[in-house]
């Protein structure tokens, strides 16, 4: 019954999405303008139905209803409850349902809370949301129905990929989806504004909280995904330039650029066409990300259930939405009035510099990710583009971007004097010079990129706090605090990355019980190996005694787990965090008698990478709260007047 109810709710939600689009599109023409007010309630109903459908699927997973194909192939009655629930979106169908549900909630939120925007632009936005949702409903209903039954029902399910039985799974995909959906709302706003030619500060202010929200979620998603890969895969790295990682990085780069350009549009009414284009690009990157992940056209460490028809479906949606938006852009943008102009040395100039660099990095990542695909399509040659390309091309650009980020907030809007800027930059420059000196004295010769990274991080850290100097801190608006903290987070993150690549110590040894090995400041001794049974796995557990100098030793337990359902081996790394870095131990299953293969890393200050990510997201959150307070509630106050005008 529940599966059928969920399926019915999904169909009804699809009908509502169609209605939402039709009412909106008709309402925009003068003949049917009395349809205008009905669009928003339809969006709300659509979102409620999508939620009901998703809740039905969760119930099916919680009850382990094996007569439902999706539950039988992805769950198991032995699984802990948390992973049963997380299993709902740990598969293709469920994750697509989660995506349309979040999309629906996004649309409903616009319908209920957006008051500042002209009603015609708002309705056009909701109509665009309706079309996007409709495509994904069709995708679910026709090629990925999560509610399909099987008869006869199997006695038990096939479990969930053990790598995914991790608390990270419970949050990682939903977080990224919130980000993607936020970009879809920004995209719909851009379409709405193009349709009504209403591109200006009001539109930018309406769109900004969505971009900020999406950007926060993408930042959290990427940070968490990076840490997950770091501790779960047991490879000791935090970023692998894997296509699926790139698929989440590209929307983030576009969203970061958009976040800055929309600020220019909201504050100075400049960069109109560029902001519209970026909103389209940011959403297209989200969709391309989904496509790359789901179609399996690129080889990746993330193995998802792959099906060419699904890939085809997403590709068609991608072509329709983004192609349509880009055509609309080409047709309409010429008729949108040009915004204000500005001087090169100005806050706007710095933000344009930021946008150009971010876009270039985006292109670098996109080209690197797709080059193997394009090459094979044209010449049949196979190759893979790896970290050396990305690091050597994107790395230096990211560092230049950091310099821009240091200077930008210290510039005045419209016009500034170069000499005055240099004076404001004096302290950060001195700090960077000091950092160079310290590294030269205490560390000695270092690879160039990590060295520059550390130096830039020192300068940026100082410069990012500079906007707070000589300010009354209690009267500084929240969004300025947000910017300061986010920029500081970038410096912290860069420092962590540079420290990790410059100072990491690594050892790979085959150890017998009783043997010791030195790595960094630690001496690691293999004390014992035992077999440990788990709920649905058994593990080879290594007891390692770790001692630093003369201080008290402590014990770490890396494991190599063998899962039963489905059969699979994973390594559970053991990580000890100190104030100045992490010790990372991995044990493998021995292949001969030479000993247990044990890999160890000492990674100084590696934690700063994710701490920086958290700071960036926190900065975004402060900014969001500040903006909602200022933009949205100001909209609320003028609510009555606006409705009468419409």
């Amino acid at each position, binding site marked *: 019954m529940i599966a059928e109810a969920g399926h019915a709710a999904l169909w009804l939600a699809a009908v509502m999405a169609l209605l939402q689009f039709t009412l909106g599109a008709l309402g925009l023409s003068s003949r049917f303008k009395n349809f205008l007010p009905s669009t928003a309630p339809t969006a709300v109903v659509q979102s409620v139905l999508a939620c009901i459908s998703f809740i039905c699927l969760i119930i099916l997973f919680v009850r382990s209803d094996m007569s439902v194909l999706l539950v039988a*192939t992805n769950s198991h009655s032995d699984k802990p409850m948390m992973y049963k629930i997380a299993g709902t979106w740990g598969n293709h169908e469920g994750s697509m349902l989660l995506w349309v549900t979040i999309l629906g909630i996004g649309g409903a939120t616009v319908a209920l809370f957006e008051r500042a925007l002209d009603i015609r632009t708002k309705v056009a936005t909701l109509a665009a949301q309706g079309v996007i949702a409709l495509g994904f409903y069709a995708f679910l209903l026709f090629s990925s129905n999560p509610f399909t039954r099987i008869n*006869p029902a*199997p006695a038990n399910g*096939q479990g969930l990929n053990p790598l995914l039985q991790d608390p990270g799974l419970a949050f990682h995909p939903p977080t990224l989806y919130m980000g993607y959906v936020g970009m879809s709302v920004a995209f719909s706003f851009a379409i709405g504004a193009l349709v009504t030619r209403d591109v200006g500060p009001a539109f930018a202010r309406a769109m900004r909280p969505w971009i900020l929200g999406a950007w926060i979620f993408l930042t959290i998603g990427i940070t968490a995904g990076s840490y997950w890969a770091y501790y779960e895969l047991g490879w000791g790295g935090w970023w692998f330039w894997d296509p699926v990682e790139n698929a989440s990085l590209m929307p983030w780069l576009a969203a970061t650029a958009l976040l800055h350009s929309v600020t220019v549009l909201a504050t100075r009414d400049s960069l109109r066409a560029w902001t519209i*284009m970026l909103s*389209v*690009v940011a959403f*297209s990157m989200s969709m*391309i990300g989904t*496509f790359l992940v789901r*179609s399996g*056209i*690129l*080889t990746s460490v993330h*193995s998802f*259930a792959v*099906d*060419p028809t699904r*890939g*085809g479906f997403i*590709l068609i949606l*991608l*072509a329709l939405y*983004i*192609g349509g938006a*880009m*055509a609309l*852009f*080409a047709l309409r*943008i*010429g008729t949108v009035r040009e915004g204000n102009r500005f001087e090169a040395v100005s806050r706007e100039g710095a933000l344009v510099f930021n946008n150009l660099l971010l876009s270039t990095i985006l292109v670098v990542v996109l080209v690197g990710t*797709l080059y193997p*695909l*394009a090459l*094979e*399509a044209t010449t049949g040659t*196979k190759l893979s583009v790896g970290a050396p390309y990305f690091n050597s091309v994107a790395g230096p650009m990211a560092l230049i971007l950091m310099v821009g980020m240091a200077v930008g907030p210290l510039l005045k809007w419209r016009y500034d004097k170069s000499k005055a800027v240099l004076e404001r930059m004096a302290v950060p420059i001195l700090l960077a010079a000091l950092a160079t000196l310290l590294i030269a004295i205490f560390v000695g010769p270092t690879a160039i990129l990590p060295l520059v990274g550390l130096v830039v991080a020192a300068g940026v850290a100082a410069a990012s706090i500079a906007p707070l100097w000589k300010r009354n801190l209690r009267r500084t608006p929240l969004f300025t605090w947000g910017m300061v903290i986010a920029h500081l987070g970038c410096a912290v993150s860069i420092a962590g990355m540079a420290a990790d690549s410059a100072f990491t110590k690594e050892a790979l040894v085959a150890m017998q019980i009783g043997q010791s090995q030195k790595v960094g400041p630690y001496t690691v001794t293999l004390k014992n190996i035992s077999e440990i049974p788990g709920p649905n796995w058994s593990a080879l557990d290594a007891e390692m005694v770790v001692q630093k100098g003369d201080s008290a030793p402590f014990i770490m337990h890396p494991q190599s787990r063998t899962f039963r359902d*489905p*059969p*699979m081996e994973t390594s559970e790394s053991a990580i000890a965090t100190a104030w100045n870095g992490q010790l990372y131990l991995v044990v493998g299953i021995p292949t001969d008698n030479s000993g247990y293969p044990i890999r160890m890393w000492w990674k100084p200050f590696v934690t700063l990478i994710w701490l920086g990510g958290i700071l960036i997201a926190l900065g975004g959150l402060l900014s969001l709260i500040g903006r909602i307070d200022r933009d949205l509630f100001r909209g609320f106050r003028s609510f009555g007047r606006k409705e009468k005008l419409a």
Partner: protein
Amino acid sequence: MKRVWLWAPFAIFITLIAVFAAGLINPSDRVVASGLVGRAVPQFALPGALDPAAGLSNQSFGDGKPKLLNVFASWCIPCVAEAPALMQLKNQGAEVVGIAVHDRPDALQKFLSENGNPYSAIGDDPQSRTQIAFGSAGVPETFVVDGSGIIRHQHVGIITPDDVPIIMAKLRAVE
């Protein structure tokens, strides 16, 4: 700005779509050699794809008789092309067992009635986990397993009529 330039993003996007479509229509044949050649069949137990009782597991191997393990799927077009060669192998005395990947009973039944059924048993591998355990990266792929359950040879891609005598010879060699 010239109006033509406004179409540049659209043009770039269309190029991208073309690359994606090419990648979808003509998927890369990533020939990945299995590391299991020369080693025992990995542990697995699959329910039967058509009759849940008649499944396939590592116990099915090592009974003294060499077998051909064919990894296939009803949705796989090259598998249709491969079907006659498999029938030929069966008719020449080879025992063929199958692993159906990402498949459904109704689709599989239709596939077998249209293309013939050379399999003495078919295991159902809906998430291709057993396939991965064998080190197989795509469909169709065929493994020659000797009488003691050791994987002796991996054939990636379609078995063409020309391959039939070669594979028969490999089977005979490990008898």
